[in-house]
């Protein structure tokens, strides 16, 4: 009896040291797969980290549906967290064991989209903007308005990403509408139709975008704030602009699938990812903004994320993306496809 109790105590004590393999599902090159970070994590906790990638939110959801038990940590945009929770794909998270969770401000931690059913299902990790950047070799006066996309001076030098939702929300901002409640879709269609002749080509990946900017084929193009920071740190002549009309903002959370078999290790990894020490190092390479207030505060003053996204005027102008209904998603897709087909 005594021996058995002793053995079980020993087993319990040994658990934290037990090496687990954590499988992460994320976009490629998006923080969690930084070699130095996962290596340091493995040294500190004994858990190794492997990755699998997705190219769209639909793909991410499908992978979770079809491979139960295959993932332990999944990056989910806040606009999709509720859907994942309703489908029973992700588990509620008790933030108590995470020592860095206290640094996350209440407005992020209690974000309704990350707390479906009143329980935390995604740990706020990063946020950023979808706005645009200009090529400073060709554009000397940095524009302050989104209408620069329709300026005849930049005809054939403009680009937006080939994504229906992003295109429609971008035009919603240009027509002064709420991106989450578009009342006048016809105005959006007309605005995008007028934009089409200005466009050189659509861009698909950050890599494409960098090449087109470097070769001077793009002068004005939409881009994510984190990617713009990375391009700048690589020495590309680009300047990120948050126009007076505002910009699309998004929030990404880290979730744990209901079917995960290493929930404890997954939580430890998420804690590692929201650690200010990790974030400051990531930011130096070009990163989105941290949702952890303590991490954002730890940034050096010249950091892109502190200068641009830390500006209260900027924060006041942006509109955070909310979940999009299936009907709207379909309507936006049809609108965008019809516009592309008409070219």
């Amino acid at each position, binding site marked *: 009896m005594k021996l058995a109790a002793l053995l079980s105590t020993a087993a319990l004590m040994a658990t934290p040291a037990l090496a687990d393999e954590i499988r992460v599902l994320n976009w490629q090159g998006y923080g969690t797969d930084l070699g130095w970070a996962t290596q340091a994590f493995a040294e500190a906790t004994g858990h190794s980290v492997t990755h699998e990638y997705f190219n769209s939110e639909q793909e991410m959801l*499908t992978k979770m*549906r*079809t491979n139960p038990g295959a993932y332990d940590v999944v990056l989910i945009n806040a606009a999709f967290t509720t859907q994942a929770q309703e489908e029973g794909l992700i588990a509620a998270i008790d933030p108590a064991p995470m020592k860095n969770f206290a640094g996350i401000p209440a407005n992020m931690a209690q974000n309704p989209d990350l707390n479906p059913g009143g329980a935390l299902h995604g740990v706020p990790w990063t946020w950023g903007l979808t706005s645009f950047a200009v090529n400073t070799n060709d554009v000397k006066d940095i524009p302050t308005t989104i209408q620069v996309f329709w300026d005849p001076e930049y005809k054939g030098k403009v680009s937006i990403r080939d994504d229906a939702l992003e295109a429609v929300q971008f035009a919603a901002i240009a027509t002064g509408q709420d991106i989450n409640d578009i009342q006048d879709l016809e105005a959006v269609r007309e605005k995008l139709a007028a934009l089409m002749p200005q466009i050189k*080509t659509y861009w698909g990946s950050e890599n494409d975008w960098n090449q087109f900017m470097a070769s001077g084929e793009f002068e004005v193009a939409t881009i994510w704030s984190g990617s713009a920071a990375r391009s700048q740190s690589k020495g590309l002549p680009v300047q990120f602009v948050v126009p007076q009309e505002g910009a699309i903002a998004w929030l990404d959370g880290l979730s744990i699938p209901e079917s995960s078999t290493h929930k404890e290790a997954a939580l430890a990894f998420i804690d590692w990812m929201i650690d200010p020490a990790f974030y400051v190092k990531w930011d130096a390479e070009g990163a989105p903004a941290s949702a952890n207030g303590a991490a954002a505060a730890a940034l050096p003053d010249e950091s892109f994320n502190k200068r641009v996204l830390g500006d209260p005027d900027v924060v006041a102008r942006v509109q955070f993306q909310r979940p999009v209904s299936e009907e709207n998603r379909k309507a936006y897709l049809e609108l965008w496809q019809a516009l592309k*087909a008409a070219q």
Partner: protein
Amino acid sequence: MAIHPAGQRRLGVLGLLSPAYLWLTVAIFLPLSAMLYFSVLSDVPFGDTDWHYSLENYRAFWENPVYATLLWKSVKLGLMVTLVSVLVGFPCAYVLAKVIRGRARETLFLLVILPFWSNSLVRIFSWAIVLRGNGVLERSLNAILPFEVDVNLMFSTAAVVIGLVHSYLPYVILTSYLGLQAIDDSLIDAARSMGAGKLTILARVILPLALPGVLAGAVLIFVPVVGSFMEPRILGGRVGTYYGTVIEDQFVAVFNWPLGAALSFVLLAVVLGILALASPILRKAQT
């Protein structure tokens, strides 16, 4: 009981054919059946999603004029690429079959087939480097010509046609070459001895005899070009939306596999329809 000799032969034929049939089943019949199954579903049947059998994906093709417009655009692209390939490829095949002999022919053949050995994506990106403004083409033209020219073909229909012709030209050269090679030289000599001019010989002797090979090459090109998506997407830019790119979007970006599968089957039906309409001409050419 001894096996009848005829039965034995039938068994032998069956044995010889079975690898081919097995291959057709595994590589063509099974994937196509899976896609046909997908095309009549309302949603991707993974996990807990609610799905049922429906024809709404096929109905979408008829209800949304976008798809028909794009299909017509793709068919036109296919015809254009086929025409250009034949116009460029036939003279090339003629030179290979009838003008050049010996070592030089082998070398030229190698040069024709060489593009096939490189990855198609690499080929397209090389074209992107050549065609874009301030690219290789523009710089070399300006280096040679006494006046400045501005060549920016990138992101236009012309760029898509150039990229596709380059990808598929070897098919038409190889099939035309086989057709031309089979023409007995004495037929040409006979025509010449009876006073036929060069153009008459080409139109009355060589072209009719080589037609089956040329048409085979044309069909080999036309079918994949109508469904092409990579070349239009990379080289076409804003004007590069075709039927193939929309199908690719359904599978890669939007994750609406049933609609993508249905659109693919509509494409298959249309291509088969076009080939059926053209078959009297094709059959005439064979005889």
